[in-house]
């Protein structure tokens, strides 16, 4: 099995499972319980909080644990919107955000907020200059992701922060696909909120975090016990939180080396495919990208057919974001970049990870070529290329 869909989810790193197991066995206390067993669990959660804060360049009390990236995004967007409803109802985002952000803005629109969607250029980069024009006195929040999940393109969040700051507007960034793939120093970056998800960095599914800069107004999404300083109620997923911290530690320790290694593998993959197939476009290939992601359009074929043929060969890739597979529409990210709809339908995302080897890439490239050739040979669009 060759797994090249690390942007969808990742295998747990063995160190992560080892870190979690004691909390799935004897250290099962509730962190809110006042006796030793509870204090042990509480200490584990706070130790994880400190480690994560350190890796991200933040303070421990700025990390709020959630059930994943989706909840972190919702907490940020709904939480700020509610906390600042008296200050204004205008929000800004981009057209290429993950559905966890886009659908949430859609819902906020349904609830009466006004949302501006910043366009992206043909390279997949959000137009930060357009932000300046969109800002209004009633603008309260801008949300632009750090790295796109489909193309890997890195967004100019620093510029966005600079523009928003001038106007006193808060900035959220969905950093789910940036963690472990870019150096993150949140204080230096200057965002007010940032979302993370453990299962994208060889941690467990069902755990994430929201970074909330001190002083940022935020209403909770759920209420109950006074966990997470009242920002997020509910008994903590102790084992998951411990695993999240360990995963981030593993990712950060090896980060520079992995970035270099995965960049080389990604370039090899793209090079081999381009050398042997015509009418191939690397979407976002001209922009700064995280090293592990390659989004390639194969004109004349449909992505899903490539996915299935590779699946049958034991290679796992996807057409785009996992949670929209099943959706016959071409990717909103690619369309947003101005990719031709036919090319968008023939797009495949290859996303590499720490366990990806040279052999994986060497095995994959020719099979991609074969799949595309075969499907093109039977495609009704043969002549349109």
């Amino acid at each position, binding site marked *: 099995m060759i797994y090249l869909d690390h942007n969808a989810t990742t295998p747990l790193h063995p160190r992560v499972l080892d870190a979690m197991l004691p909390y799935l066995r004897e250290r099962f206390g509730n962190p809110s319980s006042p006796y030793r067993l509870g204090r042990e669990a509480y200490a584990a959660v706070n130790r994880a909080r400190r480690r994560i804060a350190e890796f991200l360049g933040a303070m421990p009390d700025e990390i709020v644990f959630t059930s994943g990236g989706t909840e972190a995004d919702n907490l940020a967007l709904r939480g700020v919107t509610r906390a600042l409803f008296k200050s204004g109802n205008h929000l800004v985002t981009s057209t290429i955000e993950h559905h966890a952000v886009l659908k949430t803005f859609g819902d906020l629109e349904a609830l009466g907020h006004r949302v501006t969607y910043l366009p992206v250029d043909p390279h997949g980069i959000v137009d930060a200059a357009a932000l300046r024009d969109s800002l209004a006195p009633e603008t309260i929040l801008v949300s632009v992701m750090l790295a796109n999940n489909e193309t890997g393109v890195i967004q100019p969040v620093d510029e966005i922060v600079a523009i928003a700051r001038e106007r006193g507007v808060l900035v959220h960034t969905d950093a789910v696909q940036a963690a472990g793939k870019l150096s993150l120093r949140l204080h230096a970056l200057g965002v007010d909120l940032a979302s993370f998800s453990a299962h994208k960095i060889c941690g467990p599914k069902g755990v994430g975090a929201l970074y909330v800069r001190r002083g940022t107004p935020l209403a909770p999404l759920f209420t109950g016990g006074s966990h997470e300083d009242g920002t997020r109620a509910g008994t903590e997923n102790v084992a998951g939180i411990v695993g999240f911290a360990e995963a981030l530690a593993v990712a950060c320790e090896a980060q520079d080396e992995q970035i270099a290694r995965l960049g080389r593998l990604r370039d090899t993959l793209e090079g081999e495919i381009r050398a042997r197939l015509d009418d191939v476009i690397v979407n976002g290939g001209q922009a700064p990208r995280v090293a592990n992601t390659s989004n390639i359009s194969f004109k004349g074929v*449909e992505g899903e057919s490539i996915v*299935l*043929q590779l*699946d*049958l060969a034991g290679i796992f890739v996807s057409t785009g974001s996992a949670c929209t597979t099943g959706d*016959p529409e071409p990717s909103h990210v690619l369309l947003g970049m101005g990719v031709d*709809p036919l090319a968008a339908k023939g797009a495949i995302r290859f996303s590499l990870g720490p366990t990806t080897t040279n052999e994986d890439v060497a095995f994959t490239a020719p099979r991609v070529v074969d799949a595309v050739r075969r499907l093109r040979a039977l495609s*009704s669009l043969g002549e349109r290329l």
Partner: protein
Amino acid sequence: MDEETSASRSEEDPAQSQEGIDSFDPMSGPMLFYNDRVIDHFTNPRNVGDLSEGAAIGFGLVGDPRCGDQTKLWIEVSSGRIARVRFRSFGCPGAIATSSMLTVLAEGRTIEEARAITDDDVIEALGGIPARKKHCSLLGVQALRAAIDDHEKRSSAAREDPA
């Protein structure tokens, strides 16, 4: 919750279960839950290709690739029967497999029999396809009917203008 979508979650066809998978709902969820017969027709599609122009030929084209799948289908009619049929598809595995199966069902049939083939016939012959992919099976059926129409138009044109 919508009664219809929700209900579909619990429907299940144990025949669809595959190695290493406890059991899953083939009719719902991620869309590539195809059975072995569909996968066979996707992997080894029957009757791929085209037929060159001629009086006995009919051609059908269905679907706009910019907003969905596309199938092209050619038939050659001989003595009121479909002697040969060829197709090309741009589309998902469901579109390819259903078009392929359609050509198998159509070959050798009379024009009337061929025209009577429905998308349900195709789905049945394939042993089922995921609910969200049912629309795919219409492509081939419609392309076949278009090809039959085209053939009839040509033959009547030929009759009217027998030069």
